[in-house]
């Protein structure tokens, strides 16, 4: 990072950490670190939280495009699943079984896919961008599905438990110990690291450039911003971090299939999480990912038709509160503040 961005980031950091949401985030993160050792926590809660964190990484990354650059992507499944498949196929065809080697492999794969797909797609905006990403992302789905001799086709690829820094924790601690003791913390640290990095990116001149492009591509072009190139960069960054989420999900789930990882409806789910939480704020998508996983895990217990419920919620959010849960929270806060202020005046 260059020097001139540091001051901007430092000020933004100072401004944000002293607010109520900033303090709440810190408390939540500390809580997340303690989670596996809280008295009431079982394996299920740890698994669920890890799942939320994996999707939260992808959702924050998704918002780099939707919220900051103003691009709707229906191709993110390609980055999410591409990373997971890179991990799975490397494990299948090589003897590499070390998580700290597999994660970079997944990230690189997602970045490469994003670079290629993004390069083609960024020449277009709005619907065209969304559909081009959809089509190119779907290519990966088809290829994975059809070349079943190499990819396992619809059966997918099993992800065996990797070693961590050369140690096989599954053998030492059993699954519950591995999940709560090592994997959970790797996912949590990846989340924190990804969130911090993306936050710095979005509060740097780079992030400001993206927002300028979102608000008015014509003006951005007029002041000399190479709009296509920055959209491409944004797509790559978004893809890379979506890949982090995809790799984490693969390790957590232990098995990946084209339909759960690469189908375009997975991209729709990421869009859904982002919109549900709120595209207007940086941490909105985290809230969205959490709400999505929690609603889904509840809905799946009640009915097999949980897609209906998710679709219904998505529809309602867009029609009634396009700023999502954080938008509602902000409205409530504003209403309360106004009320308090009014009382003060009377």
């Amino acid at each position: 990072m260059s020097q001139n961005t540091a001051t901007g980031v430092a000020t933004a950091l100072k401004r944000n950490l002293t607010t109520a949401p900033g303090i709440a985030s810190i408390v939540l993160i500390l809580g997340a670190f303690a989670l596996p050792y809280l008295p009431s926590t079982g394996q299920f809660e740890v698994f669920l939280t890890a799942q939320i964190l994996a999707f939260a990484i992808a959702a924050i990354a998704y918002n780099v495009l939707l919220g900051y650059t103003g691009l709707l992507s229906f191709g993110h499944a390609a980055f999410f699943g591409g990373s997971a498949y890179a991990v799975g196929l490397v494990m299948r065809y090589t003897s590499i079984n070390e998580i700290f080697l597999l994660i970079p492999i997944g990230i690189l794969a997602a970045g490469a896919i994003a670079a290629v797909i993004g390069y083609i797609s960024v020449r277009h905006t709005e619907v065209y961008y969304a559909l081009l990403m959809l089509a190119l992302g779907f290519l990966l789905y088809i290829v994975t599905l059809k070349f079943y001799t190499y990819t396992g086709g619809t059966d997918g690829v099993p992800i065996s438990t990797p070693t961590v820094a050369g140690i096989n924790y599954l053998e030492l601690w059993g699954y519950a110990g591995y999940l709560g003791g090592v994997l959970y913390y790797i996912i949590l640290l990846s989340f924190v690291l990804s969130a911090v990095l993306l936050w710095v990116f979005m509060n740097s001149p780079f992030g400001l450039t993206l927002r300028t492009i979102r608000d008015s591509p014509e003006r951005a072009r007029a002041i000399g911003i190479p709009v296509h190139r920055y959209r491409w960069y944004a797509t790559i960054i978004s893809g890379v971090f979506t890949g982090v989420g995809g790799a984490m999900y693969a390790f957590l789930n232990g098995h990946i299939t084209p339909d759960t990882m690469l189908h375009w409806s997975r991209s729709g789910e990421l869009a859904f999480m982002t919109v549900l939480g709120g595209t207007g704020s940086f941490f909105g998508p985290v809230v969205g990912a959490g709400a999505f996983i929690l609603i889904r895990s509840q809905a799946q217990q009640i009915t097999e038709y949980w897609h209906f419920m998710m679709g219904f919620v998505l529809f309602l959010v867009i029609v009634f509160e396009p700023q999502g849960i954080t938008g509602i929270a902000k409205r409530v806060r504003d209403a309360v503040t106004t009320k308090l202020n009014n009382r003060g005046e009377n």
Partner: protein
Amino acid sequence: MAQQLPILLNSLFRASTLFLLGTGLSIIYGMLNFMNLAHAAFLALGAYVSASLIQGASNAIGGTLGTAAMFVVFLVILFVIVPGVISVVGLGMEQTIFKPLYGLEDDYQLLATFGVILMMEDSMKFIWGGLPVTSSAPSNMLGGFNLVGNTYPYWPIFAVVVTMVIATTLYYFFEETRLGKITLAMAEDEEVVSVTGIDTRSVHIKVYVIGVALAALGGALYLPNASITTGLSLEFVILAFAVLVIGGLGSLKGAIVASLLIGFMQSFGSYYVPQLSLAIVFLLMAAVMLIKPTGLFGDIKA
């Protein structure tokens, strides 16, 4: 060459399904500026409803009528009742859930209608269950003929002819009728049209219903040669948009050419390179968008 003949016919059949689906989507987007991701669900709904009705009709009056009379009953179901029923469903949806979306940006329309397609998919799964549904009765009654040593059914040829008649009618509709011309004018500038005293809302609804009916008909014609499963709409969504993007938004000629291109690529592709037949379609879509972003015949909107 003789080997290619069945594939050629399959291509045309595939193309006619895609044309009926893509044209509906194209006129709804091109003329009404509404980006409906859920449009392909009307095709699936059309296929499901016609399967049920044909099954029901066969059970109820199957033995009492002669073959010819029964075939007429089937045709009435496929060409009148199914598009009618689905249009009513579609109209109900338009009035309730699509109307609030018209003012939104395209992006948000795509997202909201993604929610709608999830709801429709699950509703169909709820009604017809997870198992594949087939009803090939109309196709079987029509029989087949000998083509290079194999029996080829008459149904696909029948469907292609019907689609050609519909395409011609649509062309006439847009070129010659008052409503068609108003629709084209609305695609250019809806506000100006409304200033002239024309009730654009009623035109809007008519065009929308035509689009839905076409998709439903596509599902009804597609039905005898396929097994209908949940997930059908999600599969066809992308193909519908491929037609739209390759042909150009709101262009009838574009929809015809694009459906034919995709139909041929899919059929010949699955014969020569079975692994990549679908992939070729999306590569074509990407290539067209890179070379001519407005699609092959799109000039109405940039």
